[in-house]
């Protein structure tokens, strides 16, 4: 029998700072498998990149995990391939080559997608599964309320 994966930490969590946000993300990562996609939403500075950094670390990624806003996407090598996309600058994907995200969304990789509205139609075609939606909100100072909703 293969070991059972832990389940996603569903519900609202309050984190006191970036370290706790990364720790919560690591618990989410532990429940993911290749082909899973996590959709992230939240204001500027809410901690989306911090969250992805925590998850990527838990998946074995070393080195810097930085904002992908400008380049649209980053790919990392961990125990599994990790993709981090930020689609804010794309608006919608209607005018884009359907293959644009093909290098990032694959059944072999775990992907984290910020500003995912634009990507939802593309996700269906890429053979990947939305595993969870994560909403991050400012709660004063470094505190955040992070809601994990399994899909």
């Amino acid at each position: 029998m293969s070991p059972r994966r832990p389940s996603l930490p569903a519900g609202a969590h309050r984190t006191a700072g970036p370290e706790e946000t990364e720790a919560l993300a690591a618990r989410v990562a532990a429940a993911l498998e290749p082909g899973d996609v996590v959709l992230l939403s939240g204001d500027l500075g809410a901690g989306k990149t911090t969250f992805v950094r925590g998850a990527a670390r838990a998946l074995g990624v070393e080195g810097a995990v930085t904002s992908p806003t400008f380049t649209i996407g980053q790919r990392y090598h961990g125990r599994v391939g990790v993709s981090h996309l930020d689609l804010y600058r794309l608006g919608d994907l209607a005018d884009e080559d359907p293959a644009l995200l093909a290098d990032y969304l694959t059944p072999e990789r775990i992907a984290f997608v910020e500003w995912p509205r634009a990507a939802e139609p593309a996700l269906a075609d890429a053979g990947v599964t939305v595993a969870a939606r994560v909403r991050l909100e400012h709660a004063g100072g470094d505190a955040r309320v992070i809601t994990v909703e399994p899909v």
Partner: protein
Amino acid sequence: MSERPNRDGGGLLLAIETSCDDTCAAVVARDGEIRSNVISSQGVHDRYGGVVPEVASRHHLELIETVVEDALAQAGTTLPQLDGIAVTQGPGLVGALLVGVATAKALAAAHRLPLVPVDHLHGHVAASFVQPDPIEPPFLILIASGGHTLLAHVKDHGARWGRDGSIEVLGSTRDDAAGEAFDKGARLLGLGYPGGPALQRLAAEGDPEAFAFPVAAQVPGLDFSFSGLKTALLYKTRELGEEETERRRADLAASYQRAIVETLARRVERARAETGIERLAIGGGVAANGPLRERLRRLAPDLHVPPRELCTDNAAMIASAARFAQPVAFPGYLSLDAYSSGERGL
């Protein structure tokens, strides 16, 4: 990774750069003289108006042939006359990079030319090596753009990264790039996105001392962080309310800009003290920022700043870097792939 340019023939290199929004091609001679430097301008104008540029790889596909033809024509040369073809291999958006890589491979293979894969950030360094005003290593360089922010010790012209290599990274951003911090600040101030240039214009009318924003708080060593600053601006606008934010927008912009400039300058100052290297260069689109240049000139009066068109993304810097990078002979490059930032392994 040859330290000296390969001078046999003294020929010309064509370079192609498609790592992000702009489609670029250039021809540069082995001695660093720029013969042409073509940058597709679609999107650039819009960007300053606050409209999101089209980032599509399709956009690169439509423009690449014309941009390459223009670069060759303006240089008065043709493909068979070239020494080789250089191309940005990464980091960037993989789909966009692949348009440049595929084009470069096809052109090089058709004429049995060598191909030189170039790292985009080596390109930003090599923008300082072109004629008529090159700077000689060793020096420190601050590269700050929309996609990258790093501080490096340039030991020689070569492409090898690392402590024992040509370029040693001393610090880099933990989260957002400096150019991105400008753009996101602009968005929080209702100036549209990407509104970095709009924020910088507005800042000129404001008081940089009006608000105290955090400067590189909580980051050890020579690394940078701009995420906390972004949140500080968000909280400040919430505290002030919509009307007061609107009224104090220039002061907010000026204070926010000051925090970005100080974050960058203090790391540079510390790197100079730690390495004992005084010569300083800057590169990347944020190098165009006036207050940043002024602040750095107070540290290093002979600050080396390449012309603006060599600071923003361009192919002349890629050709310049290729003079010092390892060429790959035909057909070894046919399997060459592109890489994104996280795969660079720095």
